């Protein structure tokens, strides 16, 4: 319970300006005797590190869980090492899944957490479904995030956006009218195994964590694994490559879960994929330089969205089809979506333009989310007004 309250305070106050948002970790510490417990209490009582017991240590021979704010991670690790205390960092996706749960609990008439599948390492894949409920299989928007695990601003923006959608419903006319007509499905962590790996082992991991038979290299690029010119230009057949497309289309269970859900639903009109970095807003195609039949309309909408985004903090995005705006890429999510009847398919490459790249400072999370929200709304408004 304390955990949920703490996270609630975290998220709540982040909207009011707490700087560090993500990256708080839960350390599981092996305490073997009373001496070690008192060393640990010393840590918790030191005010400046702001470490909290999640479960208070009562007996030894039981591991103790402490919540460590991201700012204190290094200091706490050093302390534990210097005291000879063994610790392990526990599974990190707790935080986002808890927050999704909280949103569903806080807005029960609007939001529901839905499980759409499991990852390779058997983690649940959760989406938040926002629906005002009138009618079955209403036209829907899919917001995809975190497919490339190192692009942390993507997952962070997604979870901020989730709470924004929920809180602004019936307050903001735009999102209210959007939700009156359409459902929104939000997948904040499309690659949970990769995400955990970036928090525990390798901050710059991109792919899934699936085994590749006959290779010591792990994972496939989940954004080269969709059935749209699969294994074409801009993907690799080498399992060690960062853009390895996988053995076949939808081989990655994380991708297949989304494909199956969307196909079964059958009424998606919009698919938006959040990535970082480069500050780009793109539409199909990535797999070819051929012009998409709706390219003109998509380009117009994207330019309006980029303008709305820029109006918040001046952040400039470039707009264009994937292939020529960034690079050729086959088997990508939005190409698949578009070729499967989901006309309004866009990719955002969020902040920044290269100064920090994937390691975007936490104090840019909220400004990024706020400006991106204006872009997302612009697109969704257009979809609302142009349902087909």
């Amino acid at each position, binding site marked *: 319970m304390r955990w949920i309250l703490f996270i609630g305070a975290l998220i709540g106050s982040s909207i009011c300006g707490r700087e560090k948002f993500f990256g708080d970790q839960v350390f599981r510490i092996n305490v073997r005797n009373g001496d070690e417990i008192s060393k640990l209490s010393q840590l918790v009582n030191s005010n400046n590190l702001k470490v909290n017991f999640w479960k208070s240590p009562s007996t030894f021979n039981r591991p103790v869980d402490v919540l460590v704010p991201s700012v204190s991670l290094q200091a706490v690790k050093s302390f534990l090492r210097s005291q000879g205390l063994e610790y392990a960092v526990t599974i990190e996706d707790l935080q986002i899944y808890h927050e999704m749960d909280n949103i569903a609990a806080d807005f029960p008439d609007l939001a529901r957490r839905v499980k759409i599948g499991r990852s390779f390492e058997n983690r649940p894949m959760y989406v938040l479904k926002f629906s005002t409920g009138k009618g079955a299989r209403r036209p829907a928007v899919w917001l995809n995030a975190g497919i490339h695990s190192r692009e942390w601003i993507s997952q962070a923006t997604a979870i901020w956006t989730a709470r924004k959608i929920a809180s602004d419903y019936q307050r903001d006319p735009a999102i209210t009218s959007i939700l009156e007509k359409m459902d929104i499905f939000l997948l904040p962590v499309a690659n949970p195994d990769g995400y955990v790996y970036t928090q525990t082992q390798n901050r*710059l991991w991109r792919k899934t964590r699936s085994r590749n038979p006959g290779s010591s290299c792990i994972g496939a690029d989940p954004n080269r694994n969709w059935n749209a010119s699969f294994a074409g230009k801009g993907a690799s057949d080498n399992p060690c490559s960062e853009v390895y497309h996988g053995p076949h289309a939808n081989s990655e269970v994380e991708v297949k879960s989304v494909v199956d859900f969307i196909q079964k639903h059958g009424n998606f009109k919009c698919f938006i994929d959040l990535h970082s970095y480069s500050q780009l807003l793109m539409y199909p195609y990535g797999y070819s330089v051929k012009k998409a039949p709706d390219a003109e309309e998509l380009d117009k909408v994207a330019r309006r969205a980029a303008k709305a985004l820029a109006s918040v903090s001046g952040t400039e995005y470039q707009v264009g089809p994937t292939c020529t705006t960034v690079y050729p890429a086959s088997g990508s999510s939005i190409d698949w979506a578009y070729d499967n009847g989901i006309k309004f398919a866009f990719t955002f490459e969020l902040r920044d333009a290269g100064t920090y790249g994937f*390691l975007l400072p936490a104090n840019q999370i909220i400004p990024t989310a706020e400006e991106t929200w204006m872009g997302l709304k612009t697109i969704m408004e257009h979809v609302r007004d142009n349902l087909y």
Partner: protein
Amino acid sequence: MQPGRQRLPAPWSGPGGPRPTAPLLALLLLLAPVVAPAGSGGPDDPGQPQDAGVLRRLLQQAARAALHFFNFRAGSPSVLRVLAEVQEGRAWINPKEGCKVDVVFSTERYNPESLLQEGEGRLGKCSARVFFKNQKPRPAINVTCTRLIEKKKRQQEDYLLYKQMKQLKNPLETVSIPDNHGHIDPSLRPIWDLAFLGSSYVMWEITTQVSHYYLAQLTSVRQWKTNDDTIDFDYTVLLHELSTQEIIPCRIHVVWYPGKPLKVKYHCQELQTPEEASRTEEGSAVVPTELSNF
């Protein structure tokens, strides 16, 4: 920091005549070969639609390559520049030789975690000619920039940085700078700035027409004692290559003294090709004897 927002000059009159809706196309179809005997080299196949996006990206990449080179040559870790905005440019593509780019762009002083709003960092203007040789790294670059900061002030800041680094006690061997959340501790800034400078050299050297690099993170730092007053550092940096999305680890060794040219040696891991890129900067004669772990 703003990406390239580009204001292009009025439609060019090229051999194909100006096309008001796509002046850039004319630029890319420009027939002028870069260095070639008359008659050789030809236009891009007009059947392939290149568009404004391609040119824009090319100009940005050229500007970035020019800045890697500029920063290295300026040799000043306290005054580094990053790309603010591409303003104008043109490109010639010769399928046999490579790609020549003229680009004018504005720059900002590099200052991560600056409290300044975007665009308030001091702006300088640069113009560069960048020649990407076909399939070869190390583009030939000619670049000039307006001055961002007075020479005296720059010397002072460099010297301050130098003193901070000389006074460092036992820099940590395995670190992440920035940390996983993009934060650089103020006490570690000088280490980062010098690594950024050294990495600029490396990135210039390994850049090609298709490979473009960004500095992602430092993962190890080691300072060596010197017999003279120079600063001597070993780094492991992770570079991010955009089109392949690969992370390339490089070991970089830098020797620096304020006002003197930077000496750099490096070794980057090549993933796809078996050859390893390993070069020494020209003119580097002094090699610290403790350098045994390369």
